[in-house]
């Protein structure tokens, strides 16, 4: 059960995202009934499964929200931005209600949300109309016996697809739900039941026919089956006005006419307000006698499996495991290659080569699987802009380009926070107020653009706004007042811009609710660097500000340089490498301080051979690999540079947490390990 609850939570989070997407669509196009339907459906399933898995508060609140959307779904009114904002806020509230053991606080929140929803419903619909139409199905069931004249007797034939259990549907629940709508007369059929030896307990062989006397309209009856409509054959027909459940003659007559495939005319028709709707309905819904339609339905049932499975959900842990196994395979493969080249046996070589090819494909495939498009987090950005532009009273539009660009799931997760931060900044500081924009003869609507593309083994994300741009003079005076630079310092415009990434730098004069709480863009920079990425900024006053993020495709595989120091191997990530120089021991020895002159520049260095205590003597000639970090250049002195190397990084594990100058280890072809150097950390530690 806990497993199911966890899965449900995951699912609900997806629902939330889809709800947000739908709502934001509606914002632009309030007449988008498809979106309204989708929202309604999502709420309905949340309500249903929420109750089933014990998230009663969630279910309770969504019930009211569902009622709210029923108003728009039935086209009584069109949706407005007030409702959209309200719903978005409610979704935030629902996030909090996603708990199994609610506390007092949760109950209060739920109560408040329910009250607010009811208030909104009351506001939209005059109260007399409300109770008959817009309460949820359960609510209506209570007064079902109030007046039998309002009721209509329907016939429902429900033949579930035999695979219906596979999506976790229990047909009995649906029948219970019908029972709640009104008085029922239910017959169960086992026509499809095979011989005992052929029974598959995972399949459903039962079908039902029932009469229901209810005051509900046919739509409500259809709603009961809304989630199984493609998994079952459902026929709903009007038998007669009024409650005729106990009038066996009419029921028998009806069944007879069905059997004989005659057209059924409801007896003693009293003109009721439901009439027209029902007739319309019977036209849409094929009569059982209509054989062509029968066949069509049959076809629909056969073609079902096609429409169901295009994607499968896999726990990301499983993908990680798969990735690990594949990289192990690659390692084993390169060992096999080593052995095979020693043995020199043509047959073995052929197999090795074939294996190599498959291995490589498998690796690419595995790699591909762990990538997800940036699109998956775009809703968060849209939502942020929607909310913030309202509260800042600015008009802002989001333009996205290339969000289908894919990145490692782990990176995407870590990217959300810095990206939101940048967007928040652009909204708050970048985009000017509407009046200001008009004064500058710009369009009153500001535009924030997110553009993503793949560049080599990197993904570049540009976030730009067409706002006020950065003011170098202002940054300069601010930096001086904060003591980040001195009056005498001469900085290029670029260097000045980069100052805004310094800790404690915030240009906003007023500390606003949105950004400027002291924790600033330095957090963005740190987060991006943690992912071995870089962030840059360019700007032109009154035109634009653009943040350029460059990120590796994956955290687990990096391009690096395989180097040897003494008897051990180390991988230096390519991202930081600038140049490689050969140096003689004399040059290094002569220096009193640990500085070497390269191309006329004084470069501090670390001789890894000396630092990493080797038993092998210092060689006469060594190699300096210069790496850059921020604006510093630093030299790493190694004994030998072997080749470029694509390293699968393995974590060093808990026991070695304190060894932070290494970001992990990579398994070499011969099964040995090479430590991967974290250049940023090593520079921080030694310079």
């Amino acid at each position: 059960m806990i497993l199911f609850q966890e899965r449900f939570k995951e699912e609900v989070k997806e629902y939330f995202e889809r709800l947000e997407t739908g709502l934001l669509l509606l914002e632009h196009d309030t007449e988008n009934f498809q979106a309204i339907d989708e929202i309604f459906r999502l709420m309905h399933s949340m309500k249903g499964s929420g109750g089933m898995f014990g998230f009663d508060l969630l279910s309770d609140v969504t019930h009211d929200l569902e009622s709210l959307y029923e108003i728009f779904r039935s086209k009584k009114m069109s949706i407005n931005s007030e409702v959209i904002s309200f719903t978005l806020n409610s979704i935030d509230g629902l996030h909090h209600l996603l708990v199994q053991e609610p506390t007092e606080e949760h109950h209060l929140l739920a109560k408040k949300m329910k009250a607010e929803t009811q208030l909104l419903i009351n506001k939209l619909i005059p109260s007399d109309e409300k109770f008959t139409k817009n309460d949820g199905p359960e609510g209506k069931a209570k007064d079902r016996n109030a007046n039998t004249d309002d009721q209509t007797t329907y016939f429902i034939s429900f033949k579930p697809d035999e695979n219906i259990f596979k999506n976790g549907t229990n047909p009995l629940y649906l029948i219970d739900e019908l029972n709640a709508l009104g008085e029922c007369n239910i017959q169960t059929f086992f026509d499809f039941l095979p011989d005992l030896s052929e029974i598959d307990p995972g399949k459903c062989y039962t079908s039902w026919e029932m009469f229901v006397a209810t005051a509900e309209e046919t739509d409500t009856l259809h709603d009961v089956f809304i989630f199984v409509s493609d998994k079952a054959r459902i026929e709903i027909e009007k038998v007669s006005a009024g409650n005729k459940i106990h009038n066996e003659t009419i029921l028998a007559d009806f069944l007879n006419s069905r059997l004989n495939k005659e057209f059924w005319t409801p007896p003693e028709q009293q003109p009721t307000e439901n009439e027209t709707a029902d007739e319309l309905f019977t036209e849409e819904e094929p009569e059982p006698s209509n054989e062509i339609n029968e066949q069509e339905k049959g076809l629909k049932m056969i073609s079902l499996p096609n429409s169901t499975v295009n994607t499968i959900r896999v726990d990301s842990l499983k993908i990680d495991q798969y990735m690990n196994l594949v990289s192990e395979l690659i390692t084993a493969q390169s060992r096999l290659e080593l052995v095979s080249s020693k043995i020199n046996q043509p047959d073995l070589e052929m197999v090795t080569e074939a294996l190599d090819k498959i291995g490589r494909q498998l690796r690419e495939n595995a790699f591909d699987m762990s990538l997800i498009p940036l699109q998956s987090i775009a809703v968060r950005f849209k939502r942020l802009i929607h909310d913030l532009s309202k509260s800042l009273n600015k008009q802002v539009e989001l333009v996205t380009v290339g969000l289908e660009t894919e990145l490692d799931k782990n990176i995407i997760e870590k990217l959300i926070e810095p990206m939101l931060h940048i967007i928040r900044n652009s909204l708050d500081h970048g985009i000017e107020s509407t009046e200001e924009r008009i004064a500058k003869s710009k369009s009153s609507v500001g535009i924030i653009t997110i553009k993503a593309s793949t560049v080599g083994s990197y993904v570049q994300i540009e976030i730009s706004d067409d706002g006020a741009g950065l003011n170098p003079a202002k940054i300069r005076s601010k930096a001086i007042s904060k003591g980040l630079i001195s009056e005498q310092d001469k900085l290029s415009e670029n260097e000045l811009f980069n100052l805004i990434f310094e800790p404690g730098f915030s240009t906003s004069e007023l500390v606003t609710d949105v950004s400027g709480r002291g924790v600033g863009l330095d957090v963005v920079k740190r987060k991006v660097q943690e992912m071995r990425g870089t962030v840059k900024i360019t700007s032109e006053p009154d035109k634009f500000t653009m943040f350029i993020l460059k990120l590796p495709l994956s955290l687990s595989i990096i391009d690096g340089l395989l180097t040897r120091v003494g008897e051990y191997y180390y991988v230096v990530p390519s991202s930081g490498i600038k140049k490689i120089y050969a140096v003689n021991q004399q040059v290094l020895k002569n220096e009193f301080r640990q500085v070497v002159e390269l191309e006329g520049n004084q470069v501090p260095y670390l001789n890894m051979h000396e630092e990493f205590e080797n038993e092998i003597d210092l060689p006469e000639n060594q190699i300096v690999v210069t790496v850059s970090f921020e604006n510093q250049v630093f030299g790493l002195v190694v004994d030998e540079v072997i080749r470029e190397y694509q390293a699968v990084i393995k974590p060093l594990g808990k026991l070695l947490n304190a060894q932070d100058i290494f970001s992990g280890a990579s398994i070499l072809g011969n099964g040995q390990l090479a430590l991967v150097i974290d250049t940023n950390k090593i520079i921080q530690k030694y310079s």
Partner: protein
Amino acid sequence: MAAEIIYGLNSYFTFRIGSELFAVNIGNVTKILGLTETTKVPNSPRYFKGIINHFGSVLPVFDGRLKFGFPETEPTKNTCILVLVVEIEGHPVSTGVIVDSVEKVLIFEPEQIKPAPSIGKGFNNEYIFGIATFQTEFVIILNIDKIFSEEEINLIIAVE
């Protein structure tokens, strides 16, 4: 590699370092590996031998001789790596210890295990779970969670 500690067993895995017979609860032992080349991690103490590739993951390996205060010797054909799972911050973590030789599995009922006396001679009492006897010999049952506790490891790494 999802290694797990199995609790509640009264079987003990014995191994030898120098002339002493040590034991750890069998629930903490996952594998015995032949001695392989280790990759040294710079700036770590001498008794941290380095890391090895253990079926695709990184396994830290300690030298049991140095860790328990024995003089370093040349490995013999009996020298091997004992792979243990210890609990660090509530998570099972695999770690390797190089021992001179592995012996047998012995069963000790709780009442057969005596608390460790103060024996001095470099043995820290804290690290000893208890002492049992097998035939005429003492068996030192180690408290390995303590030996590989995180503070201990951090201490190891900090030493230069």
